[in-house]
């Protein structure tokens, strides 16, 4: 890959996931590219996203599972809009 060509900004680990992970610090209103099954799709961010943090790639309803690695990492305790920062303010563990 050409290192000067910023092909994507975040990683989708599994096609069934509803969150992606940023590979750099990203800003609100920025339109980011992610690779899904070899296709590049665009998402407009509605929050600032620090590096390594999670972003929703679609709307997630309250009580819905958050999926990363193709596995459940917790549930949403607020409605989460597409392009939001997904972290402890809207996700909780099912195990702790």
């Amino acid at each position, binding site marked *: 890959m050409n290192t000067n060509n910023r092909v994507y900004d975040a990683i989708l680990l599994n096609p069934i996931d509803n969150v992606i992970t940023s590979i750099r610090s990203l800003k609100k209103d920025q339109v980011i590219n992610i690779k899904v099954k070899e296709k590049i799709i665009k998402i407009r961010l509605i929050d600032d996203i620090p590096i*390594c943090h999670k972003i929703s790639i679609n709307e997630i309803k309250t009580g819905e599972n958050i999926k990363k690695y193709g596995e459940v990492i917790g549930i949403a305790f607020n409605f989460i809009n597409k392009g939001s920062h997904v*972290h402890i303010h809207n996700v909780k563990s099912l*195990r702790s």
Partner: protein
Amino acid sequence: MKEKFLGFERLDGTVGIRNHLLVMSITGLTGPIARKISLNLPGSLLIDNPYGSGILGVDRLRQDRAMIGFGNNPNIGAVLIISGDPPKTEAIKKGINKTGKIVETITLEDCNHDSISMFEKGIRLGAKLMLEISRKRRSLHHVSNLFVGLECGRSDPSSGMVANPIMGLIADYLIDLGGSAVIGETTEWLGAEHLLVKRAKNNQVKEEILNAVNFQKNLAISNNVNLLGNNPGYTNIEAGLSTIEEKSLGNITKSGTKVIQSVIDWGEKPTIDGMHLMHAPAYAPESLSGFSAAGCQLIFFSTGVGNSFNNHISPSIKISANPKTCKKLHEQLDFKCSQVFEGKKTLYHASDELWEIFIDICSGTRTWGEILSESTEVFSRIGRSL
């Protein structure tokens, strides 16, 4: 890919990647004297057990097993035991002697309870042992002789997504070649235990995995600990990990994909080759000492935001995939793989590179942790003392 390294063959057939004199104080009263002895024998390693005769039951069993395990670790060439308890000294000496390793002992009783006399005797005896082990030469050995610990500390999402999966590839490859590996940190199996159970060798191992996870979960509940803020801890959360499930799913990727042969206790040596789980605390010093007591010659240690702590007996290869961390911590990270996180390199390419570094470090190249001496050993405890 290289399959051989230059190591120190021991009398019991195990192979060390280092050849240290271990100065081990096995009673709390003698710790300060042992520290002075070790300081005056540069290159020796100090282990200082702060406890003594009040240690009971399972704690006693685990501590005795760990002291024997530290002494028997293949990276140790000889052991100088410093002690205030002659019967215990004999028992630990006997345990270490079983492998044919040279063990010398000094008790306070041998020195008329005079610490200065103990210090002098310790230097003389330790110096003699250091000369003796320095005669040992490295020779070529196959990687099947290696048992590695797999640790993560101060993790972030890049640990679980990149650094740990690279360690998993290394573990798979090592096990295919006849070697062994272990992961610990039981709390960080919570939320990923269904994936570990699928790899259990048999129903017994499956039960042991589930029991260990339940034990840890109940330990948190019975102490009114909400895992959020504890595990994931403050640093993990700030770095982007939101729940224990997320952390665990990233954690277990470092165990690779091979069959899980057994669940072992803290500091317990596995009886067969392959991949093992150690049911043990997650915090790095306790976790790492469990690995070196079990006989690991080397530790792969991933970090997200940085973690300067290393194991004393088993050199730790520090790995990070976080681009910011890789830019900052030049004298801490032995292997940087942020290019994988940024999509500029594959996991496979990086694991091949790490394998080369692994073989080099096994053959004598030093880790940053060794050079900077950012290391120690600690003892895990369960109950109260008498």
